[in-house]
């Protein structure tokens, strides 16, 4: 996020796209609702009529996967009607002409054709956005989990820069991170292209710095991203895999394929706190401490590094993950000095990642600090690119063309399946499924369908249905709901048997390698 949660209830205008906040980030949603109750306006863009729609000034139920067409249409109107922030565009950005040329091809009528949102609505929204500044744009996985995910993100940034909304309190581009420490795992360099603090593995200076710090020689070529790792297991390129705390056999698209790949591994190690569908494939399972059994930090969506503290002793012989990695390193010939969360952070992370130099455990006992924190006196950075002064120079418009999802409905599979999270569960329920009460509140997955499709297919609410894609077939209960638009099925990936990922399409954004969880073609039948 460029901005902070503290901005949410102060904001006057929201553009929320692909974010079911009341279920996936409920506390963040409360602040948005507070702002609306205080007079803020909200444009909600989502194929589903989620709970937030009750609070929206306008809800735009676009067709799944048409975000770029809609955003380009909005930008077309802003430019055509001369409503964009000319001063901001002139002084803070580059690439406007390219953007203008690209969105020229998206008059509202064409945007309507692709997105299903009426042209006059597109014009109205563009005018409303131009008249209410700054606005906060929020998105979540509804934007990124597409084969055009990167272009979706670029389009969100283009839109906010064109409006001159980036670099101000209550403005910016604000992706809400899905899991508690996704931000931190990225910050720490658990990515194939960067060391901690986003220092590129291909940069000789960065490589030299880490070689000196760690006392070893390092490789300067990019590593594999997750999809390539699994495919590598399948074709023999990858022999060994270490899976730490992830239930990939349920979270990755096309479960059948993922499991097939894992079966081919020569050697798999898992660190986990429970047996999962993934640990079945392991040769060695190492029992780890869980949240609240060890000291450390998480970094939230707004870049805030917060303390997590040990409150109880771990059961049996479970050990901290950092200790497990350190012990393996020792057995492979390296002695590492740091011996606790604090030593790892204070003596290594904050010494090596420039944006975190000013963060030490002693400084984050209370509310944490938002990086960048360049020195020990710095109070953190609540929003980035202050006054439109981008940290990397000028804001770069990167126009994008709309592309349809990789698999679209046809005669055999006439519906679109889109997926996500439900309020009472998290991921594959390794945690929530074992927390008293949550299973009682939501004990099974449903296929959410529209009233129109239910009628067409002769399916009543609560009946058993079979949902199939080219990759698999599952049986589950139908939920007929006005939330879902005609032609769409929606479900989550919380339950094993009725997991959306038996059906989802293992196709990826070419740059980010994010899977297209939000769109694949399915058919729905009543189970006799």
């Amino acid at each position, binding site marked *: 996020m460029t901005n902070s*949660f503290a901005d949410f209830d102060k904001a006057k205008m929201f553009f929320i796209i692909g974010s079911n906040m009341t279920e996936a980030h409920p506390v963040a949603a409360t602040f948005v609702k507070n702002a609306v109750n205080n007079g803020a306006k909200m444009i909600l863009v989502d194929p589903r009529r989620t709970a937030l729609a009750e609070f929206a000034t306008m809800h735009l139920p676009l067709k799944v996967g048409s975000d770029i067409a809609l955003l380009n249409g909005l930008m077309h109107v802003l430019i055509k009607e001369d409503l964009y922030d000319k001063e901001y565009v002139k002084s803070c950005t580059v690439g406007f002409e390219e953007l203008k040329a690209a969105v020229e091809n998206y008059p509202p009528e064409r945007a309507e054709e692709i997105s299903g949102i009426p042209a006059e609505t597109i014009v109205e929204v563009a005018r409303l956005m131009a008249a209410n500044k700054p606005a906060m744009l929020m998105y979540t996985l509804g934007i990124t989990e597409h084969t055009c995910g990167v272009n979706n993100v670029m389009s969100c940034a283009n839109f906010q820069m064109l409006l001159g909304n980036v670099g101000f309190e209550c403005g910016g581009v604000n992706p809400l991170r899905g899991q508690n420490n996704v931000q931190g795992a990225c910050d720490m360099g658990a990515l194939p292209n960067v060391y901690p603090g986003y220092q590129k593995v291909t940069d000789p200076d960065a490589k030299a710095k880490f070689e000196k710090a760690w006392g070893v020689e390092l*490789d300067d070529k990019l590593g594999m991203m997750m999809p390539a790792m699994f495919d590598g297991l399948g074709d023999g390129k990858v022999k*060994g895999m*270490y899976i730490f705390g992830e239930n990939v056999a349920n979270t990755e698209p096309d479960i059948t394929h993922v499991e097939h790949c894992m079966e081919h591994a020569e050697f798999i190690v898992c660190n986990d706190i429970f047996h999962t569908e993934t640990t079945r494939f392991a040769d060695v399972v190492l029992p780890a401490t869980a949240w609240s059994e060890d000291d450390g930090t998480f970094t939230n969506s707004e870049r805030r590094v917060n303390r997590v503290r040990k409150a109880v002793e771990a059961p049996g012989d479970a050990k901290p993950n950092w200790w497990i990695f350190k012990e393996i*390193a020792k057995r492979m010939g390296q002695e590492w000095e740091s011996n606790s969360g604090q030593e790892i952070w204070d003596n290594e992370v904050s010494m090596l990642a420039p944006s975190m130099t000013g963060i030490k455990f002693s400084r984050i006992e209370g509310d944490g600090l938002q990086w960048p924190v360049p020195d020990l006196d710095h109070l953190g950075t609540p929003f980035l690119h202050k006054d439109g002064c981008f940290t990397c120079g000028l804001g770069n418009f990167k126009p994008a063309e709309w592309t349809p999802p990789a698999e679209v409905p046809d005669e055999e599979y006439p519906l679109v399946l889109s997926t996500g999270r439900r309020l009472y569960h998290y991921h594959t329920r390794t945690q929530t499924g074992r*927390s008293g009460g949550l299973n009682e509140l939501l004990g099974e997955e449903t296929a959410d369908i529209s009233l129109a499709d239910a009628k067409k297919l002769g399916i009543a609410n609560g009946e058993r249905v079979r949902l199939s894609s080219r990759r698999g077939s599952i049986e589950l209960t139908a939920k007929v709901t006005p939330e879902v638009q005609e032609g769409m099925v929606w479900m989550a990936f919380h339950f094993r048997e009725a997991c959306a990922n038996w059906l989802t399409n293992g196709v990826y954004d070419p740059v980010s390698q994010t899977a297209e969880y939000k769109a694949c073609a399915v058919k729905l039948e009543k189970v006799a």
Partner: protein
Amino acid sequence: MAESKLKLNGTEVEFAPGETLLQVAERNGVDIPTLCYLKDCTPTGACRMCVVEVKGARTLVASCAMPAGNGMEVQTDTEKVRTARRLAVELLLSSGHHNCLVCEANGECKLQALAYEYGVDAVRFSPPAETYPIEDDNPLITRDFSKCILCGRCVQACNEVQVNRAIGFGYRGAEAKIVTTGDRPYDQSDCVFCGQCVQACPVGALTEKKAKGKGRSWETKKVRTTCPYCGVGCQLWLHVKDNQIIKVTAVEDAQPNRGRLCVKGRFGYDFIHSPERLTTPLIKENGEFREASWDEALDLVAERFMEIKKEHGPDSIAGVSCARSTNEDSYNMQKLFRAVIGTNNIDHCART
């Protein structure tokens, strides 16, 4: 422009336009007791605990609802004020069945604390004859209306803080009660079990069902931490007794959640105590897992990785890190891959 000054217990203080007497007092370190007041919400002036004397006013005024005015002279702790507060406590104590001996809120009940502070040693008025049945049809929240003092904090927590709009006041007069639409149990209503009402309840009318009987407030240690669910990073108090988390509440005034939690953050903590936890290293032999010592398991991992590396090169090993564990764990895992195994094949599910 008119000056913004008033006299608080004889001392001249400044105030900002729109501030209430309670806010002015709080800011100046003068303690005024409250029961129904919920910070950042519309003042209701319902409980009459925060009454103060304002010179020239016909009656005592509720400081939570009274805007500060220029030239006001306010006394917060006179005998008249104390007498009124004592009576308010007495009336509230007799409004229902407040039996501290068997109350989950014993030790952290505001009404109990105020009864003690204001020297209420006997209840002058008889409580109503009938008691309400306790509602615990749902797995997470127990409602005991016989202990409800109708302060309305839960209603504000639901409608103004979380804006879930699931509960409100129902019925009238002596019949008044907190209700969901249609006065149904929580689990058949619009309630989403965020538990903000429980956190707001100043007495024992709303309590965490899972915490029942697990420990009294004075027996628990409070540990501050960060929620393990979504990317908001809410700040939690873990209430711990005998090596067990027995309850979770939000840290008030902390960024980013400012005292708020959702259903998972508040109630999804006990997975760590599940009997299904892995407690010993496991090695697979002939398709079955057997228990092993740490030394044996770690030696095997190191040995196999070294073999694979030697035979197929470091890039034949790949690592999936964890987006749910700590930064320090992720740091060490990527360091293991880069510095020890010798590959950049490290990734995590930032994309799911």
